[in-house]
């Protein structure tokens, strides 16, 4: 490679299979854990198979249902953005397997630190999906109370949440020293392959290792950081980096729900029981645009997207369920109906979301009264009152300003 030369961002289709499985000569790739083949057949893995052996038929159908519904949610949100109801949207299509399967491995007492694309994980935490849209409708910087579902707010400054997850996990471990009756718990930090280059990820991993924090780093390697391919972020599989920090790193087929579920359960148990941090790299693919403002045709070939089509996590699980006669056509028809109803409710919810009054923006700047904020609020009120026909802020009277 020439000095200053970086890999072309056009994906090299010839090396595609090799990239998918990792090249043993160049990179000492830890085997990619896979429990379901692309055709939906079960593969045995000595370490991880046992972690999904107890899954019931209902739970397996549940995985499919979850993935189906969040995909439907994603489509609806994209449509809402196109119709001007949302200022932007971050689609997750293609990553349902990684998100649902890892989310379903969590216990209620675990705490999730997402980036901004973890809609599927949010769903597994029981978060009301329309709340995810408040931020994207431009009416809130948050949208939900993170304590309700132990699902933190989305973070737009990439990787900033990773040290938070580590610190929170350190706190969990301390709490149990004081009160051993508390349930064992862990945090999960979700981030992307691009974000893995940020200093915050490295510093978070150093702290996690130093303090043996019960944290699982869950990197969704969806191959693209907007237009930049993973090869620009790392020469080795991201999972390999864990070794350098001194904790286990596992590369898992991110479109295989069984494998992701098994690996995440293993990692969470390892972390909760005092084993320390684990890095999981879920090898997956973002099937659509980075956000609704993005144009993937500028940087990648549609052949690459197509090559991933038969790795679709939904399709793969469907094959498996059908081969075992665990589903029939009626199952899928009912699900489509459920998805339609959910989309209708979502749309209604979103359209009913009103913009806040501007005065609300003065209310939560500080937890305690702040004279400057009060002064500016009063000046703003006086200014607004100066307009005879002003459409006065309807929330002004009802909301007591605490500053």
């Amino acid at each position, binding site marked *: 490679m*020439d*000095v*200053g*030369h*970086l890999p*072309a*961002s*056009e994906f090299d289709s010839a090396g595609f299979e090799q990239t998918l499985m990792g090249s043993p000569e160049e990179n000492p790739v830890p085997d990619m854990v896979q429990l379901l083949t692309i055709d939906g057949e079960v593969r045995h893995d000595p370490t991880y198979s046992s972690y999904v052996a107890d899954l019931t038929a209902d739970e397996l159908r549940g995985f499919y249902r979850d993935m189906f519904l969040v995909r439907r949610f994603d489509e609806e949100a994209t449509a809402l953005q196109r119709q001007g109801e949302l*200022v*932007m949207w971050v689609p997750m299509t293609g990553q349902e397997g990684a998100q649902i399967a890892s989310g379903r491995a969590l216990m209620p007492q675990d705490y999730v630190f997402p980036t901004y694309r973890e809609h599927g994980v949010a769903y597994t935490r029981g978060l009301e999906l329309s709340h995810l849209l408040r*931020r*994207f*409708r*431009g*009416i*809130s*910087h948050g949208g939900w109370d993170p304590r309700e579902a132990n699902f933190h707010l989305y973070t*737009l*400054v*990439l*990787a900033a949440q990773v040290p938070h997850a580590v610190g929170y996990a350190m706190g969990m471990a301390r709490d149990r020293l004081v009160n051993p009756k508390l349930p064992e718990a862990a945090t999960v930090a979700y981030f992307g392959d*691009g*974000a893995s*280059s*940020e*200093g*915050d990820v490295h510093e978070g991993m150093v702290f996690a290792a130093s303090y043996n924090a019960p944290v699982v780093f869950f990197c969704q390697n969806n191959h693209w*950081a*907007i*237009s*930049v391919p993973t090869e*620009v*972020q790392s020469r080795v599989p991201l999972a390999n980096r864990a070794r350098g920090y001194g904790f286990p790193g596992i590369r898992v087929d991110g479109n295989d729900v069984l494998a992701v579920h098994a690996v995440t359960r293993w990692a969470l148990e390892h972390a909760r029981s005092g084993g320390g941090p684990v890095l999981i790299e879920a090898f997956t693919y973002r099937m659509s645009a980075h956000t609704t*403002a*993005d*144009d993937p045709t*500028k*940087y990648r070939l549609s052949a690459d997207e197509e090559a991933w089509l038969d790795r679709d996590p939904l399709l793969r699980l469907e094959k498996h369920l059908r081969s075992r006669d665990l589903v029939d056509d009626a199952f899928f028809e009912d699900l489509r109906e459920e998805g339609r109803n959910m989309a209708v409710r979502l749309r209604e919810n979103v359209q009913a979301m009103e*913009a*806040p*009054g*501007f005065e*609300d*923006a*003065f209310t939560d*700047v500080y937890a305690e009264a*702040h004279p*400057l*904020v009060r002064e*500016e609020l009063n000046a*703003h009120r006086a*200014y607004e009152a*100066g*307009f005879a026909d002003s459409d006065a802020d309807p929330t002004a009277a009802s909301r007591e300003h605490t500053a």
Partner: protein
Amino acid sequence: MSTTMTMAKAINAGLRAALESHPNSLLMGEDIGSLGGVYRVTEGLKADFGADRVMDTPLAESGIIGTAIGLALRGYLPVCEIQFDGFVFPGFNQITTQLAKMHSRSEGNLSAPVVIRIPYGGGIGSIEHHSESPEALFAHTAGLRIITPSNPQDAYWMIQQAVACKDPVIVFEPKRRYWLKGDVDTSAPTSDPFSAQIVREGTDATIVTYGPLVPVALAAAAAAEEDGRSVEVVDLRSISPIDFDTITDSVKKTGRLIVTHEAPTFGGIGGEIAARVAERAFLSLEAPVLRVGGFHMPYPVAKVEEHYLPDIDRLLEALDRSFAY
């Protein structure tokens, strides 16, 4: 030779000219290659100059600025793109503790002529961290130069002047004006990038502003004209250093001053200008210097940002207050 182009296109053309005239210059940033940047400001440059002159970097602002410093120490002229204003902070440490101080720390032996382009400001209806105006945070640090174009002509030349400058230069690009069209004279630079310019003459009051608010100030001045008030508008262009002579000369002529910017008023550039004018032209002032800026709050959500951003009405109201003295 004069052509009409948008501001984004003007910066693109300016970068192209810089890459042509300085063989050691190079662009680096997230998504600036095949995609041409999220605002397409670098569109087509990788295709024409190659991947080693237009580098898609790993996603790491500290890494981008830090390696740019190293490249600059080695004789290169790196031009970094930070994707959005709110994402410069992972690189803030490198900018303030290293880049700004390289020249003074080395007692003048080293220089780090890094250029950092940051799309900034609001009005585009986006989400958190995509609409901020952090210029004062950088202006407070000695060793950095900070400029902000408000029209395509300046955009075209200022980026080239920044590349040619021996000091580190931060170019704050008003993103909501990327699509603003204007004439660009590509034959010669019009002025020193670190000087202010009077963009409208007036006799009764002065509005000092920069970047995205220049068109707003001009519109307010035009509206004030109908009320019989002649308002002068000064486009600051450079936030560090500030051309205080142009400002004080204008205030000595008009007697009144309003400073406006999108960044929060408290601790902002407007306060510095007000204080300097009080020191330099106190006896010329007919009224206290007034500031119209953002509030002491995080940049608000898209649906209410219009109340946050200084607009014509807020400027006219400030003019009324000034004339009430």
